[in-house]
C-alpha cells in the first residue's frame, strides 16, 4: 500500500507528542527559528527600506493569516478583509486617543473588538455558502467602509485619526528599528497560535467544515458555531494586523481600505497556499516584494539602452503594473496550489475547493 506521506526516510516518530508537532521535520523547525533570529538581527544588518518591507510583511502577514483561516481552512471566501483590517486600526486609535488606553493594550483590545464585529458579519455565514457568502462579505466591505466614512466619533470621519506610538515602560517603539520587534513579537505569537489551533479540536473542526460540511455536522461539529467562529478568529487577526499598521503609521484613514486591498489579501493567501500557515507568510512576502522588485527593474530599465530602443519610458509605470498582473498569472499557471505546495512538497489541500462538497 502506498503511503502518501512524504517524510524523509528514517524520520520515525516514537512518541505521539513528537508526531503531533507543528513542524513536520526537525529541519523545518530549525529553519523557522533561524528565520526569526535573522529578522531580529535585521535592524543591525539592513537599512530602513528593508525594515519597512519586513514590517509590512509582518502586519499584512498577520491579517492574511486571518483570511487564510477563514478561506483556506474553513472554506469561506471573503472579499471584505480590508475593512476588518481597517476596523482594527481605527479601534486601536479610538481606544488609544479616546479612552487613553496605551497602545500596548489597545492593540490586543482592538483585536477583540474586531472579533466582535467579525462575528456579527459572520452571521450570514451560517446560512450562505460559497460565492453567495463571498458576496455577502463584499457587502460587509461596502457597509463598513461607509460606516467608517460617517462615524466621526470613531474614525475621525473622512479625515482619519491619529495614533500614538507603541511604548512599553517608557520606551517608545517609534522607529522602524524598534517597531520591527513589536511586529515580530505579534507575528511569532499569532503564527504559533494558529498552528496550534489547527492541530487541536476546533481547528480540525474548521477544516472538516470546509471539506465536507454535511459529514462534519454528523460527526458532531456545530456548523453554525464554527462558520461564525472562523469569521471571528479571522477578524481577530485582521484587527491585530490593522492595529499594528495604525500605530506604525501613527495615522489611520479610510483611504486605501477598498476592495482592491481586500483582493490583495486574497492574492496573498492563494499565492502562498490556501490552508497553509507558513505559506501565508510567503504569499504576503511575495505580494509585498513583487511591486518593489518590479519597481526596481523598471528603474534600472529607465534610461537604459533597452528603454531608448523601445521607447518604454512613457509606458514604464504601466509595464510595471502589467508585470505584476502577469507575475500573478504565470505564478498560478506554474504553481496553482501556492508557494506552500512547493515548499513542503506535500500535495496541497485544495484540489477541488470550494466545490468539493
Amino acid at each position, binding site marked *: 500500500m502506498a503511503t502518501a506521506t512524504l517524510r524523509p526516510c528514517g524520520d520515525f516518530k516514537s512518541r505521539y507528542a513528537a508526531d503531533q508537532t507543528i513542524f513536520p521535520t526537525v529541519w523545518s523547525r530549525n529553519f523557522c527559528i533561524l528565520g526569526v533570529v535573522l529578522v531580529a538581527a535585521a535592524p543591525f544588518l539592513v*537599512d*530602513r*527600506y528593508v*525594515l*519597512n*518591507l519586513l514590517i*509590512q510583511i509582518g502586519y499584512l502577514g498577520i491579517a492574511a493569516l486571518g483570511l487564510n483561516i477563514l478561506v483556506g481552512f474553513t472554506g469561506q471566501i471573503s472579499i471584505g478583509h480590508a475593512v476588518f483590517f481597517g476596523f482594527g486600526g481605527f479601534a486601536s486609535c479610538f481606544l488609544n486617543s479616546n479612552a487613553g488606553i496605551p497602545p500596548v493594550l489597545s492593540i490586543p483590545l482592538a483585536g477583540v473588538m474586531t472579533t466582535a464585529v467579525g462575528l456579527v458579519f459572520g452571521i450570514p455565514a451560517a446560512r450562505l455558502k460559497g460565492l453567495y457568502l463571498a458576496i455577502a462579505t463584499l457587502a460587509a466591505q461596502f457597509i463598513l467602509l*461607509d460606516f467608517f*466614512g*460617517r462615524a466621526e466619533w470613531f474614525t475621525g*470621519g*473622512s*479625515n*482619519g485619526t*491619529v495614533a500614538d506610538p507603541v511604548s512599553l515602560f517608557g520606551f517608545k517603539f*517609534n522607529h*522602524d528599528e524598534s517597531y520591527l520587534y513589536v511586529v515580530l513579537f505579534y507575528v511569532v505569537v499569532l503564527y504559533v497560535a494558529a498552528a496550534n489551533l489547527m492541530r487541536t479540536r476546533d481547528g480540525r473542526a474548521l477544516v472538516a467544515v470546509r471539506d465536507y460540511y454535511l459529514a462534519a455536522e454528523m460527526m458532531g461539529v456545530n456548523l453554525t458555531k464554527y462558520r461564525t467562529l472562523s469569521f471571528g478568529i479571522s477578524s481577530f487577526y485582521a484587527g491585530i494586523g490593522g492595529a499594528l499598521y495604525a500605530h506604525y*503609521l*501613527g*495615522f489611520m*484613514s*479610510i*483611504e*486605501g481600505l477598498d476592495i482592491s486591498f481586500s483582493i490583495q489579501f486574497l492574492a496573498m493567501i492563494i499565492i502562498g497556499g490556501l490552508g497553509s500557515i507558513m505559506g501565508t507568510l510567503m504569499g504576503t512576502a511575495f505580494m*509585498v516584494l513583487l*511591486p*518593489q522588485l518590479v*519597481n526596481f527593474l523598471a528603474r534600472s530599465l529607465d534610461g537604459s539602452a533597452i528603454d531608448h530602443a523601445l521607447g518604454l519610458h512613457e509606458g*514604464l*509605470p*504601466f509595464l*510595471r*503594473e502589467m508585470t505584476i498582473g502577469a507575475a500573478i498569472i504565470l505564478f498560478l499557471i506554474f504553481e496553482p496550489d501556492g508557494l506552500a505546495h512547493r515548499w513542503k512538497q506535500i500535495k496541497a489541500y485544495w484540489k477541488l475547493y470550494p466545490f468539493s462538497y
Partner: protein
Amino acid sequence: DYPIGHLNDFSGGTADVGKPYGQGVDDALAYINAHGGINGTKLAVDATDYGYQVPRALAAYKNWTGSNKVVAIMGWGTADTEALVKSVTDDQIPFVSASYAGTLTDPTGKGGPASERAAPYNFFYGPSYSDSARALVQWAAEDWKKKGGQGKPKWVHMGANHPYPNAPRKAEEEYAKELGFEVLDPVVFALTPGDYTAQCLTLKQSGANYAYLGNTGASNIAVLKSCETAGVKVQFVGNVWGIDENSLKAAGSAGNGVVFPVRTAALWTDNVPALSLFKEIAKNSDPSGKEYKAVHYLAGVCAAFYLKEAMEWAAANGGVTGPTIAKGFQAKANWVPKGTEGVCKPSTWTAEDHRPTLSVELYQTQVTGPTDSGTVSELIAKGTMKLNKVATIELPRKKEWIGY
C-alpha cells in the same frame, strides 16, 4: 548631489490629473538640472510612480529616508500626504504635496480653532482646497446678485465621502451660510464614473443654484453628463482637480460653463513672457514643443521651482538640509521664483501659516462644438474649448482659517 524624492501617480486612480502635474514636476526638475542645478549641485531625483497606493508610497518614503536621505520630497495625493505628515515632521523633510488640504496649512498646530495638528514640513503651491472653495462661494454670491437672483441662493456640495472631496466641505459650507446661501444636504457620488442620473434628478428637484463638484475629473464628467441629460440647470463650480482641459474634452458640451480655480496667473496660450521658460521646460517631454499643456502642468512646474529657490536659499544659509529648506520657503514674502513671474502667483509661507496665497483665479469653461475628435491642443487652438477668466478673488488672510 541633493537627493530628492518625487512621488507621482501616472498609472493609478488619480492618473488623469496626476499625469500632467507629475510631468510638470519632472520636466522642471530636469530643466533645473540641465541649467546648473542648485548653485552648481545637481538634484538626484528619484521619481516613484506609486499608483495612488499608500503602502507603496510608504515603502518609497522609507527608501528615501534610508541610507541616502533625501532633503525634500515632491509629493502627490491626499492619502499618502496625510499618511506621511507625521513621518516628514519627525524626519524634518520638506514635503511639497499636490494635496491642498486645509489641514496642511498649520505648521504649529495652534492655528485656527478647527486646526487638528501641526504640519511644519508640509508645503504646497496654490490656494488650499478650502480657500478655493471659499473663493467659489464668494464668486457665486456676487454672481447671484449680478444675475438679479431673488431670495436666498441654494448651495450644494457634491462628492464622495472621502478625505479628498470632503477636505473643503466644512469651510465651504460655513462660508456659504455666512454669505447668505441656503446650504442643502450634500449630494454624494462615488469617485469613479458611473451613471449619476439619479443624483442629478434629485439635484434638479432640490432646486439648487450652485453645485460644488468635489471629486476628480472622471467622476465629475460623469455627473456633468448625467445632469445634462436629466436637464439640470445648475451653475456648477469645481475643485482644482475637478475639471481641466482634458476632462473638459471628455465632458464635451456637458462641461460648458463650469467655474473653477486655477493656481497660476496665466494659461499655456496666454501672452506672458515667462511662459517661454515653461515652453522651454516642456521640451523635455515634448521635444516638438507643439503640445498644449494643461493647468496642472503649469502648477507642477511652479511647485518645483519654489522648491528650487528654497533650496538655493538653504545652500546660501547653512547648507541644504530639510530644516534649512523649510526655512528657505519661509524666508521671503510674496515671492515668485525667478523667471516665472506672471505665471506662478506670489506666495508666502511663514512659521505660523502655510497658506501660500489667498488670491484665487477663477475661470469658466466654454465649449462651442463637439470635442470627440482631435486632441486637446487642436481643440484649444480651434477655440472649440476655451477657458475664460471670470474673476480673481482676494480672500482675507484670517487667522481662524488656518488649518482647515
